[in-house]
């Protein structure tokens, strides 16, 4: 068992006291960020990235910390969903359905505990799935040539909106904008492109600045616009009365939903939103008439929680093995890897094995930490909910400022960040998704490089891009990804509750 060996090594990395400390800090910060209503995991990870940089952490430590933030944000998201009926991000919408009624009927503590256990089971199953599937997929990906990679990148963009996405053309528009911004700077052949003679643009646009601007600053502007909404008072906590029987009762649900969620996370175009939705719907079918779904059935709470946490771990599979993230948060994690000069993909497993397996082990440890952390500290997190947003968002913005400023101590970076924030506000107003913009920025250089290699190998014939069955298959999937929302989308969307998109 080669994999098992690597995993043991990974645990060695993740259990170093230094790394463990950052994992704990990350899990705590992540839960805090996730619990803040309206501040999703992608935002949270985005704000913390510059800090990871300026602290000069080694890559494995930075990644371990941010994976913990990621896992923590998923845990935290459920707190505002259950106690406030406000989902922090779109997958948490399904959690509101049974979580909020359960809390209202005086079982807030039980609802939080059950969802924590279900989240843990979902993540655990998915991490095991990741351990089994990732090396297999990485081996398979070794057979990819440049033409296949080019097609794979196209597939990533085409499916990013998800089959429930509203308008795939807007996803493509966003991707094109991101890719175009990525071409700014001096290219691989030494030619200046779109720099307008500005020295700051010679090295291109730093995607960390773009990410923080697009996510954090545009979030501030949106908050100001919604400021009239005010803060809702969270439901008061009660004394926890949970028996083993209650936990055993949700076990089958959590296992089923965890497996389902994992596959939804791995598949391009599905993601955590669909993971929690499919899990909830299936569970409703399986339980049938015995359930009181929608009125506070614990199983209706466990299913989407296990499903979305499993999907978020599952989403790491394509990101780590192919370098193609399937969600906003994994895109932000990819940004971190690239800035450490680690190219995700099959070669990462052989060249940076310690990083990959350290992260996977950290995911397991992080989840355990979160489960333990969540029970005694739940009161603290609930307090966070009652802090008025008028105080929170300006402080979050300030943290973003400090983070970006301390990367290079330059004011021009801050101007770029503000500009991206304003652009992000307009994009969101126009329903142009932000994640493809960021993915375009991240994947642009790689996409161009693969195109160049592919055409050099074929002496300039463009047919090489569809020259192998694998490439044709990838293009076919990309085409389905663009067309499916028009065909299947309306059917699915009608059944899903509407809410904020991430």
């Amino acid at each position, binding site marked *: 068992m080669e994999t098992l060996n690597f995993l043991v090594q990974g645990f060695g990395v993740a259990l170093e006291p230094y790394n463990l400390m950052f994992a704990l800090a990350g899990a705590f910060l992540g839960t805090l960020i996730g619990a803040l209503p309206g501040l999703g995991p992608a935002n949270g990870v985005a704000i913390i990235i510059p800090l990871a940089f300026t602290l000069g952490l080694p890559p494995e430590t930075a990644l371990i910390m941010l994976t913990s933030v990621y896992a923590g944000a998923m845990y935290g998201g459920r707190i505002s969903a259950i106690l406030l009926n406000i989902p922090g991000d779109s997958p948490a919408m399904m959690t509101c359905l049974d979580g909020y009624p359960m809390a209202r009927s005086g079982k807030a503590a039980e609802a939080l505990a059950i969802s924590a256990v279900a989240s843990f089971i979902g993540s655990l199953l998915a991490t095991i799935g990741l351990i089994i599937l990732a090396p297999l997929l990485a081996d398979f990906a070794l057979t990819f040539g440049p033409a296949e990679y080019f097609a794979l990148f196209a597939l990533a963009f085409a499916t990013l909106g998800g089959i429930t996405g509203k308008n795939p053309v807007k996803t493509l528009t966003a991707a094109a904008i991101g890719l175009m911004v990525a071409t700014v700077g001096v290219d691989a052949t030494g030619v200046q492109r779109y720099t307008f003679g500005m020295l700051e643009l010679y090295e291109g646009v730093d995607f960390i600045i773009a990410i923080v601007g697009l996510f954090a600053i545009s979030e501030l502007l949106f908050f100001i616009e919604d400021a009239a909404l005010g803060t809702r008072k969270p439901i008061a906590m009660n004394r926890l009365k949970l028996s083993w029987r209650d936990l055993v009762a949700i076990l089958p649900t959590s296992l089923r939903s965890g497996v389902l969620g994992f596959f939804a996370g791995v598949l391009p175009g599905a993601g955590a939103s669909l993971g929690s939705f499919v899990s909830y719907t299936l569970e409703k079918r399986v339980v049938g008439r015995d359930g009181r779904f929608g009125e506070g059935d614990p199983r209706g709470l466990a299913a989407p929680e296990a499903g979305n946490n499993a999907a978020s771990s599952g989403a790491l599979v394509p990101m780590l093995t192919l370098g193609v993230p399937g969600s906003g948060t994994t895109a932000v994690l990819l940004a971190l890897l690239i800035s450490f000069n680690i190219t995700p993909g099959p070669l990462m497993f052989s060249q940076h094995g310690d990083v990959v397996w350290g992260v996977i082990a950290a995911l397991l440890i992080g989840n355990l930490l979160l489960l333990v952390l969540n029970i005694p500290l739940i009161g603290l997190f609930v307090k966070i909910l009652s802090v008025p947003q008028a105080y929170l*968002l300006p402080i979050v913005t300030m943290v973003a400022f400090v983070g970006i400023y301390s990367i290079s101590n330059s*004011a021009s970076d801050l101007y770029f960040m503000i500009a991206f924030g304003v652009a992000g506000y307009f994009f969101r107003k126009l329903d142009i998704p932000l994640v493809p913009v960021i993915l375009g920025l991240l994947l642009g250089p790689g996409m161009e490089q693969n195109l160049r290699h592919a055409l050099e190998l074929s002496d300039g014939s463009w047919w090489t891009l569809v020259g192998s069955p694998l490439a044709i298959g990838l293009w076919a999937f990309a085409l389905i990804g663009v067309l499916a929302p028009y065909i299947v989308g309306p059917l699915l969307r009608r059944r899903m509750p509407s809410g904020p998109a991430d």
Partner: protein
Amino acid sequence: MKLNDRIFGLGLLVIAIAYGTSAFHFPEPFAGSAMVGPGTFPKLLAALLGLCSLYLIFRPDADNPWPSARTGLELVTAVVVLLVYTVALVPLGFIISTTLAVGTLIWRMGAPPVRGFGVGLAAGLIVYFLFTALLNLPLPAGPLTMLEVY
């Protein structure tokens, strides 16, 4: 109304054309292949964005409501605060500029101004000492040079 997408699409079309035309005028690279020059990939992108913008112009979605004039003014104020924060960061130092910027934002978001500036000052002080004393990352001290940690 479906004006937003049309106007945005039109803007993107202009950008696509400008971006695409300049891709034809890049200088020939000394090194590298003739197969894929610096302009090849941008030309593809210009075509993609051009097609997308045409779709937006001819098949626009319904508009999202824009904020009222008053909220709009608050948004502009927030952006101005951020810009002034950036300008003032070095001359005024981190603590003073943070107090002013965070305080103004909190106040404009509807909290009592005195408490807002108080929170701003506290946040500025905490982050300043966290960064300079604990993490060894310099932040501009401005006129408060006696706080500089060496």
